[in-house]
């Protein structure tokens, strides 16, 4: 590569990086604004919801004042932005502690489930998808397709309960809930991985099939390259890049899933904390939790995007 070309390429990568970062910042600002809109602008009074129907008008007025709900919307928005920028979400209405600290304390527990679930989903989905594609329309393909579609059709909280029923209640292999030992991780991780591995294996199958149809595969085969080599070196590797992007997009599925799965298994993560806060109308914690989850998703996608453009020159240059 010539000097100019290298410079140009460096420039392009830098430009792409800056463009993506700016876009991510815009998205984060949008996310913050949306949380504000949902919790403050939509009809419905957070103070009234927090206090319940029996609240006296005085108590209501006091809480509205404390929450700043009696100020004009633009002022509320400005204050909200300023608070978010400082990581200040106020104290939890129930627990009295700073909402953001409560959420941050729970992040490790959520990751402790999300990361192994992601790994499990990949490890299971890749071979399933590859076999389904290589043996397209065979009995195996159909079996895998029925299994993955079936897995996708079950609500994850129900899968979790059925696992508890069988593995914990009937067979006594695993503890039903809580966090501490590795045995307590097994069921939540499997439950969380289920929907992901279905989506992923279908995606891998489609990606493999698409690449198998390509001219370069025909050429490789015509040259007498062995099937295994064609599958691995040509098809599999080309299919991986879009799969990585899908994985990034599934960060939402995992973290969204954690809201339900952590509730089922009484796992002390931020998903459960946020869901509980929503049910208890603990708005500071809801804001902190929803924002943290959205933020993680944006950052994961940004990272995937950058890794992706580093791997695939076609994206880097366009």
């Amino acid at each position: 590569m010539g000097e100019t070309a290298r410079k140009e390429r460096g420039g392009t990568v830098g430009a792409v990086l800056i463009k993506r970062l700016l876009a991510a910042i815009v998205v984060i600002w949008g996310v913050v604004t949306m949380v504000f809109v949902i919790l403050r602008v939509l009809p419905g009074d957070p103070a009234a919801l927090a206090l319940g129907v029996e609240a006296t008008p005085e108590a209501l007025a006091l809480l509205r004042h404390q929450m700043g709900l009696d100020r004009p919307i633009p002022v509320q928005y400005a204050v909200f932005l300023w608070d978010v920028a400082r990581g200040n979400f106020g104290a939890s209405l129930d627990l009295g502690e700073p909402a953001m600290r409560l959420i941050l304390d729970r992040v490790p527990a959520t990751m402790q489930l999300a990361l192994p679930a992601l790994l499990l989903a990949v490890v299971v989905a890749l071979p399933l998808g590859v076999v389904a594609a290589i043996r397209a329309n065979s009995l195996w393909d159909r079996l895998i397709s029925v299994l993955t579609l079936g897995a996708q059709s079950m609500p994850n909280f129900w899968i979790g309960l059925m696992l508890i029923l069988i593995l914990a209640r009937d067979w006594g292999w695993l503890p039903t809930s809580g966090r501490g030992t590795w045995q307590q991780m097994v069921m939540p991780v499997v439950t969380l991985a289920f929907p992901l591995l279905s989506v992923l294996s279908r995606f891998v199958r489609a990606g493999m099939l698409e690449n198998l149809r390509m001219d370069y595969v025909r050429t490789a085969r015509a040259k007498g390259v062995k099937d295994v080599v064609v599958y691995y070196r040509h098809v599999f590797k080309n299919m991986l890049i879009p799969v990585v992007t899908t994985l990034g997009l599934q960060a939402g599925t995992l973290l969204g899933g954690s809201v339900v799965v952590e509730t089922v298994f009484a796992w002390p993560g931020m998903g459960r904390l946020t869901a509980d806060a929503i049910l208890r109308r603990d708005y500071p914690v809801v804001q902190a939790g929803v924002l943290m989850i959205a933020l993680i998703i944006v950052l994961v996608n940004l990272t995937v995007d950058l890794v992706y453009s580093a791997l695939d020159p076609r994206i880097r240059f366009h």
Partner: protein
Amino acid sequence: MELSSKRSVPGQIAGKKRRGLNRAWRRSLIRGVLLLCIVGVAILAPFLTPHDPNKVAIGARLQGPGYRTDDGKLFLLGTDGVGRDVLSRVLVGSRLSLLIAVSAVLIAALLGSTVGLVSGFAGGAMDSVIMRLGDIWLAFPEILLALSVTAVLGPSVLNLIVALGLSRWVSYARLVRGNVLTLREREFVTAAHSIGVSPLQIMLRHILPNVVDVIVILSALHLGQMIILESALSFLGLGIQPPTPSWGGMIGDGRIYLHNAWWVATFPGLAIAGTVLLAGLFGDALRDALDPRFRAD
């Protein structure tokens, strides 16, 4: 079949393709009819229930499947924590689950398609703003978005439909926009432009009919996911409120009795899984039939 011949290609391949398409149509027809059967059960549920789904009988609580009272009344799927008939509640529960899912899909499809159509057709700054808005939306897990909206608006059926509909519009907007971007450059559109057809007319008369298939396919594929999402909200307590039976709510109730009464949580879950599976199979078949480019084989 009529619909398939519309898309057949002349020549030797046509026969083979038509056979493939016919098979795809037959498959979607069968699955569609099965799905309609479930809808039929939901509509007729009040006449099909063997017992009053809300009748509490503490004396008969947590009786297993096949339980018979002294006067010979059969509770095929057992009773729940307050002695209500699980089968009757599963049957009646289908009504709201389906009604909410279908309405939410309609809202998402209408809203998303309109946005996508306008965004793709207008292009420029408007397009960028709308697409960025979509990015922002996608940063929220659907369940969290729907939970937050129902938490603020209160858990009524209408609010649930709105919350679920709002959580899914982006997929439609993106899909339709992508299609519009290609269609916009096609000859029949530029021709319409050049003879002075108004942009609105072009969008509605020339572009929209060409994206209807993809909207229908996506809607069919989303229907099941919507049922799951609604059941999750009801499971967490922010969906359909008790005592109205809903599949998710029943599973939530059954969770408490999981250790001594497995049937309370199991059967509503099977109802969800069966319905969603059928909706997914129908969506797949419809995709194969309507859009052979996406054919699984």
